[in-house]
């Protein structure tokens, strides 16, 4: 039995310890916002947070995250109003959308570490997340917008206006 905290919920899983975290999330727990892209840790579509850090869930065995905290796109904010998600909507970032939850999870991990990243810091951090539609310009603009937003004020405003 493997214990892991996912989106703040304590979960007990009876699965093969070698099962990739991505499969546990998608197939065992129906958290299908995280996508399967390459299965080799090369494309970033499966990005989730492990204790706040961006990791590739397709190459991470579930046993490696036992007793630790995982956040998926579903758990980033209860009402999908994390500052990164708000910026993503403002800039209409997604085209086909497949890579976007991975992009958002990486962007959010970047901003948690570096509140005001430079262009180069954004490029360096986001280079592991590939977008076949080529939405990179909008991704960068949205990250900058999220970085400059007053998180609490902005989020309060959006919540009030709902």
């Amino acid at each position, binding site marked *: 039995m493997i214990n892991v905290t996912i989106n703040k*919920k304590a979960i*007990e899983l*009876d699965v093969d310890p070698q099962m990739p975290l991505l499969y546990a999330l998608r197939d*065992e*727990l*129906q958290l299908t916002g995280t996508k399967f892209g390459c299965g080799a840790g090369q494309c970033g579509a499966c990005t989730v947070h492990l204790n706040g850090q961006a990791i590739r869930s397709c190459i991470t065995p579930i046993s490696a995250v036992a007793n630790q905290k995982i956040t998926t796109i579903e758990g980033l904010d209860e009402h999908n109003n994390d500052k990164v998600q708000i910026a993503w909507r403002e800039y209409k970032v997604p085209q086909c959308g497949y890579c976007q939850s991975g992009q958002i999870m990486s962007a959010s991990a970047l901003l948690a570490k570096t509140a005001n990243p430079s262009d180069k810091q954004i490029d360096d951090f986001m280079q592991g997340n590939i977008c076949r539609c080529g939405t990179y310009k909008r991704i960068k603009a949205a990250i900058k917008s999220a970085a400059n937003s007053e998180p609490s004020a902005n989020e309060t405003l959006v919540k009030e206006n709902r």
Partner: protein
Amino acid sequence: MPVNIILLAAGAGKRFAGSKNSKGDIKQLAKFQGATLIEHTIEQLNPALAQLNQLNQTTVHNDDNANHTSDNNEKSQLYISLGAHQDKISPLLPKNTPLLTSRHWQKGIGHSLADAIKQVAPFSSHLLIALVDQPLVTQQHYQTLVNTSLLHPDKIIATRSDDLLLPPVIFPKDFFPELVQLQGDIGAAKLLKRHKNRVISLQCDMAKLDVDTPEQLAEMNNIATEKITATREHLVIST
């Protein structure tokens, strides 16, 4: 408020008792893998219950502002709904098992379900509804249902087998008012259809096998025994 479990075991089991291989046997007390059906099902539900209570403890710990009214309301419980033969069944259950007695069990499963939900709805955030006559549903499946419900608290978590939506199923609180309207022999199947877009279904092929007659029970017993033997052989090979 916790997730609570209701095990429905109120029926008279008329087809079971009336079968030619039966001498008026009580279905809930028929033997499956060495235990009675009701004991077997409780055993399969216990790991899910234990997990829920572990979770309740951690949430209480982390939340300083939690307002505790009473211990009872924080703890997840397994409630057993009894109707027919309750005088014979209840002495066999573990001590302190909370029982829900259905006054209208003769009128069908819809009535017993509604009766049971009425009694526990006020202090439940979600209800896991399990049946006593699906003995091949494993403890792993019950746990997967609970895990999925924790991560998708606004969804109904149902069991799927051949495109059918079946129990065991977990309902969030906002469906309780509809569930208490159920009547007669109609279970929650219609409700699941009506709210298709709010259902997450998890596959469990064995859920479609339910115990109607002693012959079916014997067959299911064989399936269970074969499975256990297969697992043992697998273990021997892999060690």
